[in-house]
């Protein structure tokens, strides 16, 4: 019994159907608990007041925005090396989710930035990096839409994802070099000293967990849709050849 068995679309769908209800439920609970706890059960920050509470949406969205791209990178590599269709389609399915999370991260950041920094937008390294990530998502999705043959589309988008990852990383460092920012340091870090205090930290972790489960559920669901589309296409081809 190996993990690769689930690379078979039919087996994947069966597993996905069993996992999805739990993923949706756990995501709903995680997000509800995380947000409720964060919004109503934590004190206001002594400097930022209640505006700080947007962190419970902002940070999880940004977390997913980055990790969705990393997941797409891994899935692209699996497709290029092992030619498993589910992997390519999972990457395709994750891209719009990542795009939306990037937009949510940017928007909540703007809403938070207005009272804090007095401006909706600043060319701060972190903000700029997310804007660039947004452009990479757009290009990746546009390439998927433009190529007619699905396997060629999977190939080309995988190559773009690989090369794009390198350039996204380069851009990250280029942007750091180019502008020193306003943005506060990392909200979560392994270094205990740098962490935000525990009162804020625990609900934030719960919320991030909920968002991650939401991402999982959405990608499973969307991958299922992509598989159904390919299945329809395959049936159409088969029908053509027998008539």
């Amino acid at each position, binding site marked *: 019994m190996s993990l690769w068995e689930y690379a*078979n679309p039919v087996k994947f769908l069966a597993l996905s159907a069993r996992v999805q209800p739990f993923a949706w439920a756990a995501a709903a609970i995680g997000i509800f608990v995380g947000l409720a706890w964060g919004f109503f059960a934590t004190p206001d920050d002594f400097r930022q007041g209640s505006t700080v509470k947007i962190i419970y949406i902002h940070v999880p969205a940004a977390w997913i925005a980055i990790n969705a791209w990393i997941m797409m990178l891994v899935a692209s590599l699996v497709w290029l090396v092992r030619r498993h*269709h589910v992997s390519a389609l999972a990457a395709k399915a994750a891209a719009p989710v990542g795009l939306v999370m990037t937009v949510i991260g940017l928007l909540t950041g703007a809403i938070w930035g207005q009272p804090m920094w007095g401006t909706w937008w600043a060319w701060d390294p972190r903000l700029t990096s997310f804007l660039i990530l947004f452009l990479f998502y757009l290009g990746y999705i546009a390439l998927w839409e433009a190529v007619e*043959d*699905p*396997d060629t589309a999977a190939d080309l988008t995988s190559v773009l994802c690989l090369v794009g990852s390198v350039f996204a990383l380069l851009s990250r460092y280029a942007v750091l070099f180019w502008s020193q920012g306003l943005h506060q340091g990392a909200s979560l870090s392994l270094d205990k000293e740098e962490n935000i205090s525990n009162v804020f930290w625990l609900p934030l972790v719960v919320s991030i967990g909920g968002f991650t489960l939401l991402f999982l559920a959405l990608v499973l669901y969307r991958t299922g849709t992509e598989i159904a589309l390919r299945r329809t296409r*395959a049936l159409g*081809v088969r029908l053509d*050849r027998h008539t």
Partner: protein
Amino acid sequence: MALSLSDLAVARGGVPVLSGVSFTLDAGQALVIRGPNGSGKTTLLRTIAGLQPALSGSIEGADDTVAYAGHADGLKAMLSVAENLTFWAAVYGRRNIDAALAAYALAPLKDRLTGTLSAGQKRRAGLARLMVTGRPIWVLDEPTVSLDTHAVGLFADAVRAHLRAGGMALLATHIDLGLDADVLDVTPLLAQANTLHGASDEAFL
């Protein structure tokens, strides 16, 4: 020196079109491939030329030996015939293009820009490109399109000379060139491919 295919299956856009293609072509032999439109002749030739991977089966003797001529000629409109041929000769590490010009009666046209030639003249220049590569196996997809009777004769002569010199030729064509060549009709192989597994979409069914 031989080209040998065994139980080759080829796919177009992830869908199998031909399967069980087996033949051996020895030095000096030609093979004509026939079949209705859309039967996968072009796909088969492109697979042999190495432009796309085979679905299953094997091709031997095609590494660095094939000169491929598809529907497009690979010639630049803004370069003269001689410049085009010299370029392709150089890519294959060769220099002399005179024999190719002579074989297709292109000498009077050699300084004309390729873009100003008629379709048939352009086709002749495209076929002359095969001669400058110096490769033994010619893989030709509908080579006689837009050629007149005289030019078809020139082409048949060029193929015969190539075969006499120990070359090989694989042609997809509907015209009888008067070559001493075997014919492979792919129609039965098409039917087989219908029941073949291994299509890229197969996994979804």
